[in-house]
């Protein structure tokens, strides 16, 4: 299919125009704004479907990609061309991602029309939908970008939108604090991201992905160093810091739980389809850079720590949405772990499957919260200890949520199993090959156990057992059927089934891609291929039909290329390890579910006993490892503030006193001299002197020219006599 810029741009522009129209005109007419936003994202979905179907069913090739560039502006100074180019880069990964973002965002928009209807009835304007449109637009722009600079631009727009959406209920003080926290925390990563872009720009001279990959292939980054660190390591590290911020990885994970203060559909959008996914997507995009910089081990550690740490916190949360928030962090940790262990396609697959089931989980949570909404106090009931037994009243939500819970827990035949199992399998391979990778793999497997446990705990506490708070239970009322709530939940729940993403039981692939040669694999696995060093060179060669990319290329083998299917024996070995990993993760998932059932469904094991036995650990977990306290009390109050005070003292005592006041003394002295000079010389002598001399001549001339004829005659004769005498 032929693509032009104008056939790709609507994906980004439709929601953007919806934002502009809503922001300036329609936001006052709430229902119009809602219609515009929904129509725009639906339109984007159609455009995205064109590309997606083309990539999957049409002209599929592992190396097929679209790269359209246009000049943004051209500073043609002094005959030297300096054009800033923007463009779209669509490969298999982008096509799948854009499809996911538009589809999930459309469903979230539709759900929002149900969830936010009270909001609208109570006289709020369409602000929520205005920002939702901009948010989606920015995510789509980021996905389609062909260079790091425009990624950064959209990245920042998303940061702003998350700020606006988290603070939607601005009258609540916590919401105001949460949006500032989210914005400021992610900014820490953003600064590093920008630094990385600048570092790459100075060396490569371009921030386009294609140029970047080519530079890596050509060895253009070898031997270059920034402040003593190899460039690839420095830039990769800096850009990965952006991922850490946006995707709430270990050191910067504190903002995401607070983001729960936004309306639940926006939580779904942020947590599932857009912002946090953008961080992982960025890391996937710069995978060759991370590989070249030798950062993958570090990435794996960050991912493992995040996956495990967030899962442990989720164990003890009592807030319905907080469990989901920590599970998001944990799942993002899995994606990053997947990148770190070189499981590129599995990490991306987990991004997609997670987007679907996490969106569904959040929308279901929104459905629960909305149903428990207290119309008298307008208080949302989100505390799980007050729920219980809700399955009798909310059958549909209960069903949808169980599908997603099984998916996230990694139960077979659900999508989460397919993707997470593959990440864990690759982690296992890495752990078997190098001792340093054992820790991330262990953390990953333990996190999987905890995930299964805490998700089932949440489900049992909320939906099963006896109602714990009778008032809440009696109050609960699920609407019989409302298409704009049930349809998104249903569709998302259906897509948590594993068959959509993996092969069928016979291994022939449920959805076949056009590439017949690889039909025996799952379409996703076939579609998304790990970029290798030198692969872009081979793209070109394969396009010319001269070499098959699966042959050993002339490229330098990186550590991970050697583990991937280059020899029959190795492939076999990998398959075996994968089966072991899959077996382990199934056992682990069922163990987690079993423990949760023993504790919360059958009540055989009393959770209170464990809480009392491990009271200290329990409180540490409830305090979220006291990371907020560490940042605020420790890092900021003890570290940053005294440092700031020292700087302030230096500023006041030295800089102000000597540099500024001292300069004032010098200035005043110079000023006096120049004033004196000005007064005496310029004013008195030059200016007044000129006046005085003119006046003097004036006096003389006026005296002579007195108009007295006799005086003239006397002068004439005096001069005459003088002349004669002089002769």
């Amino acid at each position, binding site marked *: 299919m032929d693509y032009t810029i104008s056939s790709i741009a609507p994906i980004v522009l439709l929601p953007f125009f919806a934002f502009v129209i809503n922001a300036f005109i329609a936001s006052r007419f709430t229902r119009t704004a809602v219609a515009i936003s929904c129509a725009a994202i639906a339109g984007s979905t159609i455009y995205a479907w064109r590309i997606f179907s083309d990539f999957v069913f049409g002209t599929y090739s592992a190396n097929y990609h679209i790269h359209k560039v246009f000049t943004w502006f051209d500073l043609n100074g002094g005959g030297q061309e300096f054009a800033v180019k923007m463009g779209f880069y669509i490969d298999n990964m982008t096509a799948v991602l854009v499809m996911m973002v538009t589809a999930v965002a459309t469903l979230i928009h539709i759900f929002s029309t149900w969830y936010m209807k009270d909001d609208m009835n109570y006289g709020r304007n369409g602000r929520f939908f205005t920002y939702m449109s901009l948010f989606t637009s920015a995510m789509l722009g980021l996905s389609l970008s062909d260079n790091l600079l425009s990624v950064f631009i959209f990245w920042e727009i998303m940061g702003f939108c998350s700020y606006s959406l988290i603070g939607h209920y601005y009258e609540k003080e916590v919401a105001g604090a949460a949006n500032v926290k989210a914005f400021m925390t992610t900014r820490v990563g953003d600064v590093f991201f920008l630094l990385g872009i600048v570092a790459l720009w100075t060396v490569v001279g371009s921030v386009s992905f294609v140029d970047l990959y080519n530079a890596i292939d050509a060895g253009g980054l070898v031997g270059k160093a920034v402040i003593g660190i190899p460039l690839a390591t420095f830039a990769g590290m800096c850009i990965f810091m952006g991922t850490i911020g946006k995707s709430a990885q270990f050191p910067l994970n504190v903002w995401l739980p607070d983001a729960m203060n936004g309306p639940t559909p926006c939580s779904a959008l942020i947590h599932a389809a857009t912002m946090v996914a953008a961080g992982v997507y960025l890391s996937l995009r710069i995978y060759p850079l991370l590989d070249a910089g030798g950062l993958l081990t570090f990435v794996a550690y960050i991912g493992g720590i995040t996956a495990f740490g967030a899962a442990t916190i989720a164990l003890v949360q009592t807030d319905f949405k907080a469990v989901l928030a920590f599970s998001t962090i944990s799942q993002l940790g899995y994606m990053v772990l997947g990148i770190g262990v070189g499981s590129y396609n599995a990490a991306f697959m987990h991004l997609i499957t997670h987007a679907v089931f996490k969106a569904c989980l959040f929308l279901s949570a929104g459905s629960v919260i909305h149903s428990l909404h207290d119309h008298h106090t307008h208080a949302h009931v989100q505390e799980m200890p007050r729920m219980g037994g809700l399955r009798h009243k909310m059958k549909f939500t209960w069903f949808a949520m169980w599908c997603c819970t099984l998916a996230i827990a990694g139960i077979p035949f659900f999508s989460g199993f397919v993707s997470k199992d593959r990440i864990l399998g690759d982690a296992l391979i890495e752990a078997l090959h190098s001792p340093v990778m054992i820790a991330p793999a262990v953390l990953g497997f333990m996190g999987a156990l905890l995930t299964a446990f805490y998700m089932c705990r949440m489900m049992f506490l909320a939906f099963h057992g006896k109602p714990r708070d009778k008032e809440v239970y009696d109050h609960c009322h699920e609407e019989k059927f409302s298409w704009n709530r049930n349809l998104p939940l249903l569709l998302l729940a259906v897509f948590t089934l594993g068959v959509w993403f993996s092969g069928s039981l016979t291994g022939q692939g449920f959805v076949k891609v056009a590439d017949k040669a690889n039909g025996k694999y799952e379409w996703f696995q076939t579609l998304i291929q790990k970029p290798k060093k030198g692969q872009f060179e081979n793209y070109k060669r394969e396009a010319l039909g001269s070499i098959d990319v699966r042959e050993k290329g002339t490229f330098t083998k990186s550590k991970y290329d050697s583990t991937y299917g280059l020899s029959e024996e190795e492939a076999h070995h990998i398959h075996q390890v994968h089966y072991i990993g899959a077996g382990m993760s199934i056992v682990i998932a069922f163990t987690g579910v079993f423990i949760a059932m023993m504790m919360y469904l059958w009540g055989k094991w009393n959770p209170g006993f464990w809480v009392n036995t491990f009271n200290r650990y329990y409180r540490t977990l409830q305090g979220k490892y006291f990371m907020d306290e560490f940042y605020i009390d420790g890092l900021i109050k003890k570290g940053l503030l005294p440092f700031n005070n020292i700087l302030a003292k230096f500023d006041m005592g030295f800089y102000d006193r000597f540099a500024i006041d001292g300069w004032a003394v010098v200035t005043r002295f110079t000023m006096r001299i120049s004033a004196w000079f000005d007064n005496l010389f310029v004013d008195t002598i030059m200016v007044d002197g000129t006046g005085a001399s003119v006046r003097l001549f004036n006096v003389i001339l006026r005296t002579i020219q007195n*108009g007295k004829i*006799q005086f003239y*005659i006397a002068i004439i*004769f005096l001069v005459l006599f003088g002349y004669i005498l002089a002769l």
Partner: protein
Amino acid sequence: MITLTSYLLISFFLFLAGVAVMVARKNIIAIMLGIELILNAAGLNFAAYTRFANQNIDGHIMSLFIIVIAAAEAAVGLAIVIRFFQVKDTIHIDDATELQS
């Protein structure tokens, strides 16, 4: 014996007297008389040089011209003075300031 020097001395004194009258007196008619004296000094010089230097009558003719011009000038000057007197009621020269800018 009467020589050229005698005539020139007389002429010189006449001229000086004329100048003195012109500068010192405030009466316009007196000033006009001073001018007459100066013109007479000039005429006496012409006549004297003709008598002692060369034997033609150029000097005499020049003297006659001077007398005629002096007479005409006196007539014109007197007319101005009379008119001035009619307007200003005085012939004091310091009052004649109309041409002063």
